[in-house]
């Protein structure tokens, strides 16, 4: 969960009357990529020729199901997690997931020893250990390397908690 600022390139939208809409952007590699969404739902992935930037050097046509498979492979689920996190900001209270970084002082210490609520104002409401959730952990619950801590609190408090648990500050 490092790097919460998702850098999204500027996507340009070009309408193709009778065909659909083409969305194009410049990749960091310098390649120009585009997705052509047909009115009938088909999609084409296009990459432009470096010598002739008006022409496509490769065109891949995807059916509706192909598109879903590919977007899954490209990690659309991560994106939706980020979106879900942003949407959980209600009435100034947010929820976040923080992973205990290996070698952090937090690992091996109980929640009460860390004095997290006193220091930051954020509360640990659950811990996910090896995929299994531990809801409402006791204050003497000992955090370990690789635990995923679910915390609630104002966004600023969560940021401070993240500093403590993830970046060992």
């Amino acid at each position, binding site marked *: 969960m490092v790097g919460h600022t998702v850098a999204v390139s500027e996507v*340009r*939208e*070009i*309408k*193709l*009357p*009778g*065909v659909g809409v*083409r969305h194009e952007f410049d990749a960091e590699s310098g390649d120009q990529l*585009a997705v*052509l969404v047909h*009115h*009938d739902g088909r999609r*084409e992935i*296009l990459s*432009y020729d470096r*010598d*002739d*930037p*008006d*022409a*496509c050097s490769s*065109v891949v046509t995807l059916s509706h199901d192909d598109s879903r498979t590919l977007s899954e492979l490209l990690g659309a689920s991560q994106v939706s997690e980020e979106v879900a996190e942003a949407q959980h900001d209600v009435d100034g209270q947010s929820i976040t997931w923080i992973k205990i970084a290996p070698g952090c002082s937090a690992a091996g210490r109980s929640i009460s020893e860390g004095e997290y609520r006193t220091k930051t104002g954020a509360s640990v409401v659950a811990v996910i250990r090896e995929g299994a959730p531990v809801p409402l952990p006791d204050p003497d619950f000992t955090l370990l390397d690789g635990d995923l801590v679910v915390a609630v609190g104002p966004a600023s408090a969560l940021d401070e908690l993240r500093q403590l648990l993830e970046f060992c500050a």
Partner: protein
Amino acid sequence: MILAAGSSDAALAFIEIGGLALGLAILSRIASRLGMTAVPLYLLAGLIFGGGGLAEIDVSQDFAELAAEIGVLLLLFTLGLEYSDVELRDGLRSDFPSGLVDMVLNAAPGVITGLVLGWEILPAVLLGGVTWISSSGIISKSLADLGRLGFRETPSVLNLLVIEDLAMAVYLPVVAALIVGGTVAETVTTVVIALATVGIILAAALRYGRQLSRLLLAESDEALLLGVFGVTLLVAGAAQSLEVSGAVGAFLVGLALSGQAEERAMRLVSPLRDVFAGTFFLFFTFTIDPSDLPSAALPASILAAVGIATKTLTGWYAAGRRGAGTNGRLRAGTILVARGEFSIVIAALGAGLVDGAELGALAATYVLITAVGGPLITKFAERIPVRLPRRRRAPAEA
């Protein structure tokens, strides 16, 4: 009425129509084997069989003529269906100068040729229409076949087609009114009435398009198809009776439909259109007198050569306006060369004029050359490796 006629008449009509349809089927099969649209083959078959009297059609003549007329209506209807009103507006807004260049460069050679041949003004203006309008059917098929839909010059090509279609909505009723003729005052009146009618139908189509779509949108495909077919013919008939071309009425109905009704109508009407439009193309050249062909060949060839050059220039200009490079501009120019269905529709309007027979022969030859040559030329243009210093893309492409 076929059913009321004697059984031998009905049998003959069935055989004639069946033979006709099978003939079209074979041509369409050959065309798809060759990777081209079937229109040139239909025209060629009509020329070969019509003049030589190889296929004499008596009983079903009326039926075939009516089917051909319906074919024109359905062609225009599906054309209107293809673009939404928003796409038309955006196309017009962003590429209007290109549309203007398109009209001037491509209609002028036709008009001038007609006048040089000593025709009256009206058939010359119709010939201008024949040389002006590109075939959106052939071009959109070529774009897809050549994998060019995502290319950067393609929006300018598509927008030109959109503008030409809109221009047809004005051009067709005006020439239809001119064909009716009369004194100057009468002609002006019919033109004004024609344009007003188009304006009213267009406004109604844009305003009540949603309601019409909702009204026609039935659960069953059958009901939707019949509803759409009925409304198209009704509006076309009403427009025709007001001396406005019925084809424009059909076009505007297509334009009015939107959303789900539009998508399903496209899928349902397309096969019906292919049946009727095939008949139309075949019959167009059926009626051409073969003795008109030799005299049409030379002007048609010259006109086609000029038309290839002027369309290439048009596309070159249009793509250049949107910042395409040399290769893109060349591709955009050459893909626009193909003329087809609408050139024939325009020429068919003038069939009853004094110079109508010559116009038909010239238009058929012209369309044959450009419809077959266009896709070949643009495929060839792709292979020309032009590597000139490229221009920077304009920032706003949309």
